């Protein structure tokens, strides 16, 4: 187990390094030139000063040299400045991470029990009308474009009914908890609807398999009530693989968060990355993307480990 953990961690570090190089090269291909962006509109700008600036920032060097420099300073804790906010990127990303974390945690807190409930209900009688209805719901969930659901909810609840705000994140501290919650209702609804479909299908499949296994038959034969069989025996076992599904779904949930944050104007990680790419803020886009990638990779690593820990039948090698 320890050996497995260490080797997976080393692999993860390697992957993160490769990803950082790829992202570094990709971000370099975005339009524009950092020096030109920085000095835009400056009347004293001559080709000479531009060349000097380039040399000063090392931009005249080949990409691997620049990556080397970037990696060296990154490992020393210097991730550079955002050219739009004029602040260190981590200072910009800090509050955004908190914002996105709130959004994602709220979504998971609602999605997981909801998926368990719907999945278990559907699995009780596969092919029955409850099952068909729930399966229709799951299909709708994977087919709905999140940005459209957001627009429709805004039209109904903000424009027509005027019940909920359509945008804005009240910054922490100067907004009351209730105000923050009110602003989260629509985004969390969209994300939950987007996230819960695949989970429901998973719980259903896993429950059907578990309900057909010997220990459930034994539990039934002992005369346990149906609810005890489902909740205490079947559901608990069906949930083990869900750890993996949740972790693998993190990337797509984060993608959903980007769309939702952009539409609802919430300053989270997704919107920061989107704005950074739109405004060609090289450093901010790079670090934001890299952080998102690292979190996704680590979550899938944690899932594998948790899987083994929860289910002693699994031996990792």
């Amino acid at each position, binding site marked *: 187990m320890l050996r497995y953990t260490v080797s997976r961690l080393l*692999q993860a570090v390697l*992957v993160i390094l*490769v*990803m950082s190089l790829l*992202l570094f090269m*990709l*971000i*370099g*291909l*975005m*339009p*524009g030139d950092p020096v030109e962006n920085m000095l835009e509109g400056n009347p004293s700008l001559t080709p000479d000063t531009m060349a000097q600036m380039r040399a000063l920032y090392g931009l005249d060097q080949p990409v691997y040299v620049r990556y080397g420099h970037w990696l060296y300073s990154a490992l020393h804790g210097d991730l550079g400045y955002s050219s739009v906010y004029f602040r260190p990127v981590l200072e910009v990303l800090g509050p955004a991470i908190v914002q996105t974390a709130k959004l994602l945690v709220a979504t998971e807190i609602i999605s997981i029990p909801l998926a368990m409930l719907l999945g278990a209900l559907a699995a009780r009688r*596969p*092919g029955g009308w409850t099952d068909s209805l729930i399966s229709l719901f799951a*299909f*709708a969930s*994977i*087919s*709905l*474009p*999140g*940005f*459209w659901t957001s*627009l*429709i909810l*805004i*039209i109904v609840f903000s*424009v027509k009914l005027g019940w909920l705000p359509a945008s804005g994140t009240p910054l922490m501290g100067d907004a009351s908890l209730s105000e923050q919650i009110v602003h989260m209702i629509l985004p969390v609804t969209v994300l939950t609807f987007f996230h819960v479909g695949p989970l429901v299908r998973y719980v259903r*499949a896993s429950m*059907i398999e578990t*309900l*057909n296994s010997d220990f459930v038959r034994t539990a039934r034969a002992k005369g346990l009530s149906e609810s005890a069989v489902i909740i205490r025996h079947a559901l608990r076992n069906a949930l083990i693989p869900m750890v993996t599904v949740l972790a*693998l779904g993190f*990337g*797509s949930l*984060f*993608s*959903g968060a*980007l*769309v939702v944050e*952009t*539409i609802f104007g919430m300053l989270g990680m*997704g919107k920061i*990355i*989107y704005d950074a*790419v*739109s405004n060609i803020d090289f450093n901010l*886009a790079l670090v*934001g*993307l890299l952080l*998102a*990638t690292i979190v*996704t*990779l680590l979550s*899938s690593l944690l899932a594998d480990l948790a899987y083994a820990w929860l289910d002693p039948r699994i031996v990792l090698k």
Partner: protein
Amino acid sequence: MSTATLSNVSTLTRDNSVWRKRWERFRHNKLAMVSLVFILLLASACAMAGPIEYLMGLDANATSLLRRFRPPSAQHWLGTDDLGRDVLLRLLYGGQVSIAVGLLATFITAVIGIAIGVIAGYVGGRFDNILMRMTDCIIALPLIPVLIVLGAVDLTKIGLSQDSASSPTVVFLRIVIIIALVDWTTIARIARAGTITVRNVDYVRAATVSGARARYNVLVHILPNIATPLIVAMTLSVGRIILFESTLSFLGFGIVPPTPTWGNMLTNAQQLIISAPMLAVYPGFLIFTTVMAVNFVGDGVRSAFDPRAETGSGSH
């Protein structure tokens, strides 16, 4: 299973009856059939956008400030948008783009995915390991942010001229290619798993021992036997790719106006949500129903091709 007998008996009659049985099963799946008909009708309507435009005497790109936000009428069945353009025609032209991106990107995804998956599964060993680690990495990526960066890449920096980089064909191909670049992993995994199973079946080993080359084995034994899960995966991939394209175009990193797509029609609609909410309803509704229909067809194909799965989940 009967896979061995199936591929040995390669006479046409036998093949035909397998496909006929599958079609029979598919035909009895009401949801899948309705979805298939819906998709075919929608696709033909989109393909007919040009003739319809001509017959109704309209011009899809003509803007007029006097005709803004018209309600539905005999001439403009769904009204006009903020620039006075006919909404129905733009929806049909947008559909052409969305469906074309979905099909073409799925095709490229399938070619890359099947090639990599089959090679990894057939060769095995270290090569397989490296390829599968690569797919793991891509699967773990948050796709939309990565697609946005890929969509923002300045093509002149990789050697295209200014003119060709902004031509509609290049913009279209670019979105197809970037989606294919991140989406091939699903199909690669399925192809690899199938290849490994088939490779170790006795008759393939026998063929290998009798001197069959890798290419022969792959073409004659492996590909036909892993076709079923691949066809299902490809169908589902069309829906997913239409969603990717519309999301990217909505965010402004996909296909850009004036070429309409269901995604970028919604970008504008967001600004007009108070004055013209219906403009935000139509394109999204088409994306939703199209993707849903594609997914139902995929599900129908799955159960038509693999009746065991159906009975397995239906019985206790």
